C-alpha cells in the first residue's frame, strides 16, 4: 500500500513521454526551481523536433530562421557526416535567447532526459538570458526572431532582384568580417521596429529615384584649397568627422563605403546585427553553461529527494550529467580544452561550499561571503553581473585549482619547448587564476583591427590597423583573402598595418594593391 502511494507520486515512469507528462514535469520543475533557487525566467515555448531538424538547426548557427548561404550547407554536410559516422551525438536541446524563450527538444530523448533538458535549458539558460547584464543590455530578446524573419525575407528578395551570385558575394565578404563587426565598447543601437525600418528603406528608395547626376558636376567650394596649410589638423578633423578610429569594420563600411548600393548596405547591417546578437554568448560560455548545469543538478536532486523521480530515471540523469561535465586531463587523448560545463559547475558548487562550510583558506580569500550560508544570493548576483572573465577572476578558489590540478604553460613560437610557468601551489594560484580569466576575455583574444584613417575627398585609401598583442600575427592566406573582401566592399585601395601594441613599432604592412599583382 505504502509502495503504491509512493509510486503515484512520481512525475513519470518509464522512458516514453507525451505532452501531458512533459507539461506536468515542467510545472513541477519550475515550482522547485523558483522555490529552491529563486529563478526568474521568461515564459517558455517548447518545440519538439526530430533529429534531422536538429541537424538543420545546427547548420544555421542554432537559429530557427536563417537566410540561405552556401557556408551553412557546408556546415550541414560536415555535421551530418560526423553524426552518421557516430563520431558525435547530437545535442539534446537547443535554447534560443528570445522572449518567450524557445527550447527545442529532440523527440528521441527519453522522458528522464526531457526532464533534465527542461531543467537545464528552460530554467537554467532561460534565467541566465533574462538576468545577465550582457544579455539585458546588448541583445533584444523580444525582437530577434522578428528581425531574423525580416532578414531572411529581405535577402531572398534581394536574390530575386539582383541575382544569387551578387548577394552571395556580399554575404561572403560580410561573413569574413563578422568578428570585426561588433561594437565592443559602446552599446549598439536598439533594433528599431519593423515600421521604422520600413520608413527608412522607403526614404532610401526615394533618394535613389530622385538622385540627380547634375549636382555632381557643380564646382566644389573654394575653401578646399587652403587644406595644405595645416595638414595634421585637417586629418584630425577628418577622423573626428568620421568617428575614427572605428572598431566595427562592418558598421564603418555600411555607413561610409561609397560604392555600395542600399540593398548591399542593408545586408551588411543584417550580418552585423546577427554578429552582435551572438557577442554576449561568446563572452559567457562558462557562466551560461555552468548556470544551466548547476540548476539542473540542484533541481533534479531535489526532485529525487522528494520522491518525484524514480531511482532508474535518476541513474539515467546522473549518467548523462556526468558525461556532460567530464573533464579529461591535458594528456588524455580525449582532451580538447577546458570543458565550460565542468568549469562552470565546479566553480558554482565551490561557491556553495565556501558559503556553507568554509575552510580557513576560504575565509582568507573570500572574506565577503565565506561562511555566510547564503549561497543563493551570491550565485544570483554572479549570474546577473558577471561574464566569464570577471567571474573567474573573482571566484576561482585555490581549492578548485588544487582539485583540478591546473597548471600554466608558456608557449613562445620561437622556442621548441613549452615551459611550465606555475602550478597549483601558493605562489601559482593568482597567476593561474588571472591567466585563465584572460583566456576567456574576448577583448584580448579577438584580433583587434580598426579603421584608422581614410581620405574621402582624395585617394580614398582605407587604412586599417592591427594591434599586435604578444607578437601574435595573422595567418597570411586567410588575411589576404579577407583583405580582398574588404576591398570589394570598399572599392578603393585598402591597407592593413600591423602595429605592436606595446612598442608601437610597425611589424608588417599589406595592401590590396600588392594582392592584385
Amino acid at each position, binding site marked *: 500500500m505504502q509502495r503504491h502511494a509512493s509510486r503515484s507520486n512520481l512525475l513519470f515512469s518509464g522512458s516514453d513521454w507525451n*505532452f501531458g507528462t*512533459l*507539461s506536468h514535469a*515542467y*510545472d513541477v520543475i519550475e515550482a522547485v526551481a523558483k522555490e529552491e533557487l529563486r529563478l526568474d525566467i521568461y*515564459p*517558455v*515555448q517548447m518545440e*519538439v*523536433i*526530430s533529429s*534531422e*531538424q536538429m541537424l*538543420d538547426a545546427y*547548420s544555421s548557427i542554432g537559429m530557427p530562421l536563417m537566410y*540561405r548561404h*552556401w*557556408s*551553412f*550547407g*557546408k556546415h550541414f*554536410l*560536415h555535421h551530418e557526416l560526423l553524426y552518421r559516422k557516430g563520431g558525435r551525438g547530437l545535442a539534446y536541446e537547443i535554447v534560443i535567447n528570445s522572449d518567450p524563450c524557445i527550447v*527545442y527538444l529532440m523527440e528521441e530523448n527519453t522522458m528522464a532526459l526531457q526532464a533534465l533538458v527542461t531543467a537545464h535549458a528552460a530554467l537554467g539558460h532561460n534565467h541566465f538570458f533574462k538576468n545577465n547584464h550582457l544579455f539585458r543590455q546588448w541583445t533584444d530578446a523580444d525582437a530577434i526572431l522578428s528581425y531574423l524573419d525580416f532578414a531572411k525575407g529581405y535577402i531572398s528578395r534581394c536574390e530575386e532582384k539582383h541575382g*544569387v551570385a551578387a548577394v*552571395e558575394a556580399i554575404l*561572403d565578404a560580410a561573413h*569574413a*568580417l*563578422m*568578428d570585426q563587426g561588433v561594437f565592443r565598447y559602446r552599446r549598439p543601437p536598439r533594433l528599431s521596429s519593423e515600421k521604422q525600418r520600413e520608413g527608412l528603406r522607403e526614404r532610401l528608395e526615394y533618394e535613389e529615384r530622385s538622385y540627380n547626376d547634375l549636382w555632381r558636376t557643380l564646382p566644389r567650394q573654394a575653401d578646399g584649397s587652403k587644406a595644405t596649410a595645416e595638414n595634421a589638423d585637417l586629418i584630425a578633423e577628418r577622423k573626428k568627422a568620421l568617428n575614427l578610429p572605428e572598431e566595427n569594420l562592418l558598421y564603418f563600411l555600411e555607413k561610409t563605403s561609397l560604392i555600395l548600393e542600399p540593398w548591399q548596405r542593408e545586408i551588411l547591417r543584417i550580418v552585423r546585427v546577427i554578429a552582435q546578437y551572438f557577442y554576449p554568448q561568446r563572452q559567457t560560455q562558462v557562466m551560461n553553461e555552468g548556470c544551466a548545469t548547476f540548476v539542473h543538478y540542484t533541481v533534479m536532486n531535489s526532485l529525487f529527494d522528494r520522491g518525484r523521480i524514480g531511482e532508474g530515471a535518476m541513474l539515467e540523469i546522473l549518467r548523462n550529467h556526468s558525461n556532460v561535465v567530464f573533464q579529461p*586531463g*591535458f*594528456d588524455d587523448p580525449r*582532451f580538447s*580544452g*577546458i570543458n565550460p560545463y565542468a568549469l562552470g559547475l565546479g566553480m558554482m558548487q565551490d561557491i556553495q561550499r565556501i558559503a556553507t562550510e568554509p575552510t580557513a583558506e576560504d575565509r582568507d580569500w573570500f572574506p565577503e561571503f565565506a561562511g555566510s550560508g547564503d549561497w543563493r544570493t551570491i550565485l544570483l548576483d554572479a549570474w546577473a553581473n558577471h561574464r566569464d572573465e570577471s567571474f573567474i577572476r573573482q571566484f576561482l578558489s585555490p581549492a578548485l585549482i588544487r582539485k*583540478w590540478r*591546473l597548471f*600554466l*604553460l608558456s608557449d*613562445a*613560437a620561437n622556442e621548441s619547448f*613549452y615551459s*611550465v*610557468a606555475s*602550478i*597549483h601551489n601558493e*605562489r601559482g594560484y593568482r597567476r593561474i587564476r588571472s*591567466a*585563465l580569466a584572460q*583566456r576567456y576575455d574576448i577583448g584580448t583574444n579577438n584580433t583587434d583591427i580598426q579603421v584608422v584613417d581614410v581620405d574621402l575627398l582624395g585617394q580614398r585609401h582605407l587604412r586599417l590597423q592591427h594591434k599586435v*598583442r*604578444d*607578437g601574435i*600575427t595573422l*595567418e597570411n592566406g*586567410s*588575411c589576404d583573402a*579577407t583583405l580582398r573582401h574588404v576591398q570589394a566592399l570598399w572599392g578603393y585601395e585598402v591597407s592593413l598595418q600591423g602595429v605592436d601594441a606595446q612598442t608601437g613599432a610597425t611589424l608588417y604592412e599589406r595592401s590590396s594593391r600588392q594582392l592584385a599583382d
Partner: protein
Amino acid sequence: MPIFIDRRLNPKDKSLGNRQRFLHRVRAELKRSVQEQIRSGKIADADGEHAVSIPAKGTSEPNFRAAGDSGRRQHVLPGNKQFSPGDKMPKPGQGSGAGSAPGLQESEDDFRFVLSREEVLDLFFEDLELPDMVKLSLKEILSSKPRRAGFSTSGSPTNINVARTMRNSHGRRIALQRPKRTEIEAILAELTRIEAEGPDTARDKAAALRVELDRLERRRRVIAFIDPVDIRFNRFDAQPLPNANAVMFCLMDVSGSMGEREKDLAKRFFVLLHLFLKRRYDRTDIVFIRHTHTAQEVDEDTFFLSTQSGGTVVSTALEEMQRVIAQRYPSKDWNIYVAQASDGDNFASDSERCLRLLDSEIMRLCQYFAYVEIIDERESEIFGSTDNGTSLWRAYLSVKERWPNFDMTRIARAADIYPVFRQLFTRQPARPRN
C-alpha cells in the same frame, strides 16, 4: 505551463537550399572528382551514390585569424601530475605549424560527403550536352506497376475486399452462433401473441421468453456483425513493367593507336549506353570484347587498362561477338545492344568482311548497333561531317543506309557522343521480344 509546439511534422530538409548552394560553389571540384571516379570505376557503378572529397582549402571561409605559429601564449591546462615550475617539455611536431599545446588546435582535413544519384548524374551529363528530356528519362528509376497478389490482413481502407471480408464475417457468425434477426423477431412475435391472450394465462412463459430475448440481444451485441479480424485487403505487389534482359557488347580496338584520351571518350560512350539500358531493362549484362588482329572476351579492368600490340582486324571482334551470342545470349531471350569504339584503322580488305558479317547476321540479331570513331580534335575540323573517311567508316555508312537500327558518328569531344544515341532516345520504347 509552457506552450508546446510539435514541429516534427514540419517539412524537413530546411537546409536543402544551402546544400545546393554549396554544391554549386564547389561544382568544378566536384565534377573533377565524379569524373575521376567514373573513369576509374566500373561502368555499372556510374549509376549510384558517390562519396566525394573536397579539399578543405577550396571551401574555407577567410577571416582575420591569428596564426598558430606566432607570438607568445599562455595555456591553462588541467590534470598536472608531475610538473613543477620551470619544467620544460618539447613541443610535438618540432617547429612546424602545430605551435600550440596538445589538443588545442583543430585540424582541418579534406571534406568528404556523399552525393546522391541525381547529383552524380547531373555532373556526369554536364558536358555531354544531352537534351533535357533525355537527362530526365535517364534519371528516372525503373517504373513498376502494382499487380494483384492475394489478400492481406492490413492495408488502406480503399483496398478492402468486401466479398472476402463478408465471407469471413459470415463464417465467424455461424461458428460463434450469433443469433439471427429472424430468431429475435420470432420470439418478439410469440411474446406479443402471449401478451395479447391475457396477462395471467402464461406469465411464466412470457418471463422465460423475455430472459431468452435478453440473452439473444446481449449475444448479438457481443458478437459483432463485422469484426476487425474478418477484414481482408487486396494485396498488391509492385511488378516491374514487362521487361526482358539486355546484353550490351562493348567492342573496342585496343591497338597501340588508342591512347588514354581515346579510351576515356570510349568509356563515357559505354557508360551512357549502359545508363540507357539499365533504365529500360531489369537485367543488363555487359560483355567486353577487345581486339587487335585477334579478338577476345575480357573483364572490365583488362578492357580499359591493358594495351596489346598488333594490327587491327575489326571482323575478328564481330566474329567473337557472334560466338558469344550463340553460346550465351540467344537473341530470342535477350535484347542485344552493341557499342563499338575504334579509331577507324582497319585492314582494307577486312572492311568488306565486316560489312558482310553485319548484313548477313548481326544486324538482324541486335536491337541497336552504335559505332563511334574517335578522332583527333584537329581531324574533326578536316573531316567535319563529310562522308569521306577510313575504309571502315565508308563500309559502315552503307550499313547505316540499309539498317535503321544502326547509328554512327565521329567524336573528338565528350559533347559529340550524344548524337549517336539520338535515335535510341527518341524512339518509342521497343517492345521486348519474349
